[in-house]
């Protein structure tokens, strides 16, 4: 064994430098942002899937036949207003007004719940018509993408309820403020993904 030289050598000095400023102490928001960026990849691959399979109707219904544009307009408006009201809640939080914040959060949560229930109704209607996810590659990719987004919104609502209960019980503590800021990013991110869904999946799906 010829490791004596290594064992007796003095420990190497730390020779790394911080060339740029390190992230602030509270790295949670940056970490959560990176999670959102990775979530982007999930949606990007599902969008790519829909882009490739979106015209593979297999003799089944086409986009123009099954997609409901007036319902989509309502859903889009619900999600956009929900996003803005969540922003209002964050402004109230920054002012330390817990009651007003909880009120806006409730509005945002109810709008998102309405969005999810309308989407489930649309899905059930399509399945009842025989245009379920098993009908064609177009419908498989459609259901996978839109339902993944819907599942995100549903989990966001669950998270919102948990944080509302936490805020009522423990107030606007530093922990709760940080969690609400993460949820705020998540909420706005889902609205951003929805822009892609309604534009590409629905509007382009109806036109092409």
């Amino acid at each position, binding site marked *: 064994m010829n490791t004596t030289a290594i064992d007796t050598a003095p420990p190497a000095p730390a020779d790394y430098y911080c060339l740029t400023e390190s992230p602030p102490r509270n790295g949670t928001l940056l970490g959560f942002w990176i999670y959102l960026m990775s979530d982007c990849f999930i949606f990007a691959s599902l969008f790519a899937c829909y882009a490739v399979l979106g015209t593979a109707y297999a003799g089944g*219904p086409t986009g123009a036949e099954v997609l409901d544009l007036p319902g989509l307009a309502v859903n889009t408006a619900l999600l956009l207003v929900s996003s803005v009201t969540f922003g209002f809640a964050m402004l109230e939080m920054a002012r330390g007004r817990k009651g007003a914040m909880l009120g806006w959060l409730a509005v945002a949560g109810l709008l998102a719940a309405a969005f999810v229930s309308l989407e489930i109704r649309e899905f059930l209607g399509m399945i009842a018509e025989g245009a379920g996810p098993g009908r064609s590659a177009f419908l498989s990719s459609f259901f996978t993408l839109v339902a993944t987004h819907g599942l995100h919104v549903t989990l966001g609502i669950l998270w919102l309820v948990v944080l509302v209960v936490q805020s009522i019980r423990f107030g606007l503590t530093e922990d709760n403020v940080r969690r609400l800021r993460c949820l705020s990013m998540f909420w706005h991110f889902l609205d951003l993904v929805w822009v892609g869904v309604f*534009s590409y999946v629905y509007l382009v799906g109806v036109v092409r």
Partner: protein
Amino acid sequence: MSQPSSPGHHAMPPASHDAMHEHQGSLRGYLTGFLLAAILTVIPFWLVMGHAIANQQVLILVILALAIVQIFVHIVYFLHLDTRSESGWNMMAFIFTAVLVIIVLGASIWVMYNENVNMMPMAPQYQQHPISHQPTGKQASR
């Protein structure tokens, strides 16, 4: 945090106060974002539902262009992405993601389109039989 209901920003612990300012929007910012997003949503809906553009290719390109603009409106006004927050790491992660997303989407569409175009024609017995399509009630009424 002794008085969570006090109106001033002293209710915030000082540790998170700096981080607060970096991401925080303003009422004006949210309303501007909402207005822009609403306009950018209404235009494509109107184009599709009102059959405003006859050329299908142009219509699709306009819808996608408006969607990209709206995504940037959301990023700036709702997600408050800028080069200063978190020492610019947010922006770095975003640019990295955007490049990869463009590659994933663009390459998938490009490769699969060519794959499809260059595929050998299928013999008739392997093609899906048109009879397998059961017309549904909604389609039958059209």
